[in-house]
C-alpha cells in the first residue's frame, strides 16, 4: 500500500515507522526538516519538506496513485484542508484527518469526505471509563 502522511510529529512519525516496518511504501511530509529525525535511521520511506496543503508538494510526494492519505500535522485547519485536497483533487481512496476540536471533527465527519479522528474525545472517553470503572482493567 502506498501511504502519504502529512505531519511528522509524535503520531505521524510513529505511524510512519509502523507502516514502513510492515512493508508499506510510506512518504512523510513536514514543514521542518528536524522533525524527520523522529523517523530514526532505519526508515526506508521518503521524506518531503513542505506544507501538506500545496498541490505541488503533494505531487512531489507521489499523491497521484497513493492508496491512503493521513493528515496528522499539529493544525486542525491544515489537516482538514490537506485531506480535502487529497480526496477531491487527487481522489485518494482512503483519507484520514486528525482534528483536535470535537465540533470541527463532528462537522467534517458529517460531510463524509474523509475519516476523522478526534484525540480529545477519544482521550476523554478512555479516561472517563478508567475513572468511572467501566474501563477494562489491565
Amino acid at each position, binding site marked *: 500500500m502506498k501511504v502519504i502522511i502529512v505531519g511528522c510529529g509524535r503520531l505521524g512519525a510513529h505511524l510512519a515507522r509502523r507502516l514502513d516496518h510492515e512493508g508499506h511504501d510510506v512518504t512523510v511530509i513536514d514543514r521542518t526538516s528536524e522533525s524527520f529525525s523522529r523517523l530514526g535511521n532505519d526508515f526506508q520511506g521518503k521524506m518531503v519538506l513542505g506544507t501538506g496543503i500545496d498541490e*505541488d508538494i503533494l505531487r512531489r510526494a507521489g499523491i497521484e496513485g497513493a492508496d491512503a492519505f493521513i493528515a496528522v500535522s499539529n493544525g486542525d*485547519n491544515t489537516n*482538514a*484542508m*490537506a485531506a480535502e485536497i487529497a480526496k*477531491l483533487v487527487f481522489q485518494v481512496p482512503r483519507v484520514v484527518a486528525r482534528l483536535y476540536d470535537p*465540533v470541527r471533527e463532528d*462537522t467534517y465527519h458529517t460531510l463524509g469526505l474523509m475519516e476523522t479522528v478526534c484525540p480529545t474525545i477519544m482521550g476523554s472517553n478512555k479516561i472517563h471509563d478508567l475513572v468511572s470503572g467501566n474501563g477494562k482493567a489491565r
Partner: protein
Amino acid sequence: MYIIIAGGGKVGYYLAKTLLHDEHEVLIIEKDKRKCDIISAELGGIVMRGDATDSIVMEEAGMSRADLAIAVTGDDEDNLMICQMAKKKFGIKRTISRINNPKNEHIFRLLGIDHTVSVTDLILAQIEREIPAHSLVHLLTLREAGVSFVEAQVPEQSPVIGKPLRALGVPGDCVIPLVIRNGKGIVPHGETVLLGGDEVVAVTTIEDESFLERLLGAK
C-alpha cells in the same frame, strides 16, 4: 446585514470600516491583542479577540445569525476552515474567502466556497493590464461559462490591417463587439477595416483565445 469578518489585518480593517459606513452590523474576529486594541480604539466595540476557526468563538460571535462571513486571514487553511464551518455548522448561506496562494483557488471552488478573492491574482491582472506580457489582456473570465473578455492592440505591422473583419477568419465562437480607435469606441461590423494601433475587445471561448492571439497579435 450582520457581517462577520475573520482576520483583523489591513484587509479586514478597511473592509470593516467600509461596511460600517454602509450601515451594516460588523464584527471582526482577531487573535492578536494589539490589533484588537487598535481596531477598537479606531472603530469602537466591533472587535472580538479569539481564534475565528474555533467553533466556540464562532458561536459567541453569533455566527448562526450572520448573513455573511468573510475570511481574510493570511492563512488559506484557516480561511477554508472558517468558510466551511460557517456553511456546514452554522448554516450561513454566503461566504467569501481571501486566497493567499493563487493555486488554491480551484480547490476552494471544488469545496463549494462561493466567492474567493485572490489578492495575488488581482495584482497580476493589474500588472497584465498595465504591462501586457502577451498581446491579449484578460478583462474578465467567466470560468463556468468558459468565456473570456480579452483586449488586444493591433500592432503596426499586423497582417490584419487593411482587411475587413469578415475576411479575417475569426472563429465562430468569438465575437468582436468593440474596437477602440484613437480613444473612441466603434461598434464594428463585417466590413469594418482594422488599423494599426486599434484596440480590439473580443468575447471568446477559452479554447479560441490562442487563435485570436495569433491572428491579431503577431508580435
